[in-house]
């Protein structure tokens, strides 16, 4: 397959029949989708229209799949929830608009856990399909950006995926599907047009077959945006083209991420990768992050659920999405719509999130989680005084089978995020890069850098390809 950046250059010089490529890509994506369920919606019309418009720019002629929770103007965008069925946004997310301006062509909306509520893409909305792992259809793609990761693996045409992570939803599926998942610093990419899960944690990122392609997509999407008050004004570094010189780079191996609860075969693959880095000149150190190991999961879930339960309040069948017959008073009506159209995990998080912010519990849960979050960030900040990048397995296991997942309790389910929640809670940039497989399934190494040091991740990551 042609190298993506070479292809973009050639498209800009008019060397390809983009419309023909687009038609074939769409047909190919649809046939992959039949077996693997990677898409909630195809944007046929818009995709071919954009191909016809002679795309130019840094992503010219590249098919861009967009996680369903990111709004695409005129294309059904539901965040994988039945309650938003039929909702076609009036505007493009800033990330989508910037991609389109650089010649990217929107192919469709990829499948995910409903509103991002899961790590295996099995908590789908009512009537949606569960995406299947590209290596073994009995296994999960990971989540919540499951469709994005699977499609990135399977695409035989120039393709990049826009993903989104709240607690690990980019690196987890990237690790399970054997692709690169890149989640930038919180605020690096505008959230305007992102259907909220937990606003203080949500980040739009990318997936690709290699580190530089993933970095390129972030570069295009990043930068200040007056429509998102939490978006950073810092200039965007050209990190997709940094060199791969890691002589003297200090890599911290997170001690707690290789112990109990982590598949030894997975741990060994990741250890091997760090040895590779060492061979290329990096200095390997061991680092302990005890607070994150202990409080990462509860802090993440409390903040995420509290915010999510307010974000989901607006879905009541009044102006868009699912409706029901207008009967009874407004309370009866809202209850009817929400009962019928939210999935089980959405209901669970709504109830837990509402509980944790109610008077009497608020101090013990919500406010305490906010305080813990500061402590967790501090722990990372002091770690970055001694190292440039932190390394761990992305997930403590390879992609589980659907049968295994069905036996997990909700708590075991949440615990699977143990290695990804840390950088997400702290808003730190992180990337998952495939390393040698275990049990014949892909394994990812997760690299974490300090805020706005995306370039360090690229510099380190390219050494593992």
């Amino acid at each position, binding site marked *: 397959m042609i190298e993506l950046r070479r292809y973009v250059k050639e498209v800009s010089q008019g060397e390809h029949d983009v419309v023909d490529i687009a038609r074939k890509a769409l047909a190919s994506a649809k046939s992959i989708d039949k077996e693997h369920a990677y898409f909630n919606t195809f944007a046929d019309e818009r995709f071919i229209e954009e191909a016809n418009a002679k795309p130019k720019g840094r992503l010219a002629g590249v098919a861009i799949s967009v996680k369903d929770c990111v709004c695409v103007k005129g294309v059904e965008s539901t965040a994988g929830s039945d309650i938003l069925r039929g909702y076609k946004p009036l505007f493009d997310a800033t990330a989508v608009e910037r991609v389109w301006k650089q010649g990217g062509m929107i192919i469709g909306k990829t499948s995910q856990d409903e509103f991002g509520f899961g790590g295996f893409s099995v908590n789908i909305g009512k009537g949606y399909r569960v995406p299947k792992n590209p290596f073994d259809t009995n296994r999960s793609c990971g989540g919540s950006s499951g469709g994005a990761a699977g499609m990135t693996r399977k695409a035989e045409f120039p393709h990049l995926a826009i993903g989104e992570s709240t607690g690990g939803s980019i690196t987890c599926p990237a690790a399970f599907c054997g692709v690169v998942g890149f989640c930038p610093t919180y605020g690096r990419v505008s959230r305007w047009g992102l259907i909220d899960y937990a606003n203080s944690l949500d980040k739009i990122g990318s997936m690709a077959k290699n580190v530089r392609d993933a970095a390129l997509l972030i570069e295009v999407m990043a930068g200040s945006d007056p429509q998102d008050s939490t978006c950073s004004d810092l200039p965007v570094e050209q990190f997709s083209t940094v060199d791969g010189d890691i002589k003297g780079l200090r890599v911290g191996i997170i001690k707690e991420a290789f112990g109990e609860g982590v598949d030894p075969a997975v741990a060994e693959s990741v250890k091997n990768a760090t040895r590779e880095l060492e061979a290329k000149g990096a200095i390997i150190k061991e680092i302990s992050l005890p607070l994150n190991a202990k409080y990462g999961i509860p802090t993440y879930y409390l903040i995420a659920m509290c915010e999510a339960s307010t974000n989901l*309040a607006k879905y009541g069948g009044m102006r868009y999405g699912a409706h029901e017959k207008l009967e009874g008073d407004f*309370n009866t009506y809202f209850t009817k719509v929400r009962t019928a159209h939210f999935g089980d995990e959405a209901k669970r998080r709504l109830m837990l999130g509402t509980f944790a912010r109610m*008077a009497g519990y608020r101090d013990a849960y919500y406010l305490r989680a906010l305080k813990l979050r500061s402590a967790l960030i501090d722990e990372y900040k002091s770690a970055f005084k001694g190292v440039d990048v932190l390394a761990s397995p992305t997930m403590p296991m390879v992609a589980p089978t659907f049968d295994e997942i069905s036996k997990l309790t909700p708590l075991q389910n949440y615990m699977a995020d143990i290695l990804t929640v840390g950088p997400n809670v702290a808003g730190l940039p992180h990337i998952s890069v495939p390393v040698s497989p275990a049990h014949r399934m892909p394994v990812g190494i997760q690299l974490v850098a300090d805020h706005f040091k995306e370039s360090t991740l690229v510099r380190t990551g390219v050494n593992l390809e």
Partner: protein
Amino acid sequence: MNFTSDVVIGLEIHVQLNTVTKLFCRCPTVAQEPNSATCPVCLGHPGSKPVLNKVALEKSTMIALAIGCAINPSMQFSRKTYFYPDMSKNYQITQFELPLAEHGNVTLDDGKVVRVKRVHMEEDPAALVHQGSADYTLVDYNRSGMPLVEIVTEPDMTTPDEAREFIKKLMHIISYLKVFDDANGIIKADANVSIKESGYTRVEIKNITGAKEIERALIVEVQRQHGSIKSGENIVQETRGWDPAVGMTRSQRKKETEDDYGYIIDPDLPTITMSKDRVEQLRALVPELGGEKATRLTQQYKIDAVDASVMAKERELGELFERVAQHVDPVLAARWMRRELRRALAAAGKDVSEVDEKLLVELLQLIDKKTITDRIGQRLVDRLVQEGISPAKVVKEEGLAAVSDESAITTVVKQVVDANPAVVAQYKAGEEKAFNFLVGQSMKALKGKGSPAVINKILKVVLG
């Protein structure tokens, strides 16, 4: 709290700011057709995000400063969650833990201080438009996201009259700051009222519109509570609605516990930090307020107290006065501006800002130097306001200067006396009215150019 008064009243007052755009989106605050001033943000569409209107923040800060509040160096917005059809997101963006400002006060005329607990910003929900007896209600999202400032008092008022005075004072301050649309802006209040006889059981009256209605609702509610006690009923903690059409409060909801809105910090809106410098810059923009200004004007210019209070109340008139007083006797200027200029403006339907300052000075100087009589002065004020004439020029061209020559006046007066023998006879018979008639006739003959005082003096001489 240890209350001792017969009645205890606390107020929460919502003032709609006169910004051009809404609090968190760029929709206009003025719209004609229902639902025409809307966008994904104020309609609560998925993926939209609020961005704070900086002007609203500044205007709110000025209100808080004007009532002596301390501005919090960092403030946050929170989500107040409850389900209601007028809420586009089913949460309202307001301020909870860290409001804009705290600890202010407003002094009433008798010197009593009403403490202001906090001042915060929040968005207005949409408007529900009920369709008479129809079994449905329409929603107008033009109001969704309108900028509101909420001023919360301590329960310091002890009569409905004090509450009215507090609101009047507050409204005066707000209109003085020009942050409120006096013509179309809406002020709403929630009031909590309790009486001694019930052991101060708190009853909240929701959603009263307008200062007069607030006083009326409070009077009615105090009477209701007293009546209940007299007839042996208990007052219960509850929320009541005010029905202005019937002039009654009605029970809406009994409250066993405080409302639980499950507040969280709004993660879409970063913490706002307000530097001391910025606060001082805004403080400099807060004009001197009514009470202090009236005192200063009387002291500095030695003008009449009534004139001073009007100059203080009407900000632009007061500012014009202070400029004019640099060139004319302030006492005369204040008197003429309060009486004649305001009368002429009202008659012409014009605003103080339309008055040409130079021409006004010119006119007041003519009056001050007695170049023209007060009568002519009054007529010229009208013409100055309506036509923008130059008083000096008109006086010259139309020969309106006062007749200062006493012999000329004597001639005219004599003619008037000769022409009215019957009236002169009445005067001599002791009728005062007759004298006034003769003065009037003389004035008329002099076309208003003769000073009434001079005419009086000469007429007395002529009549012997």
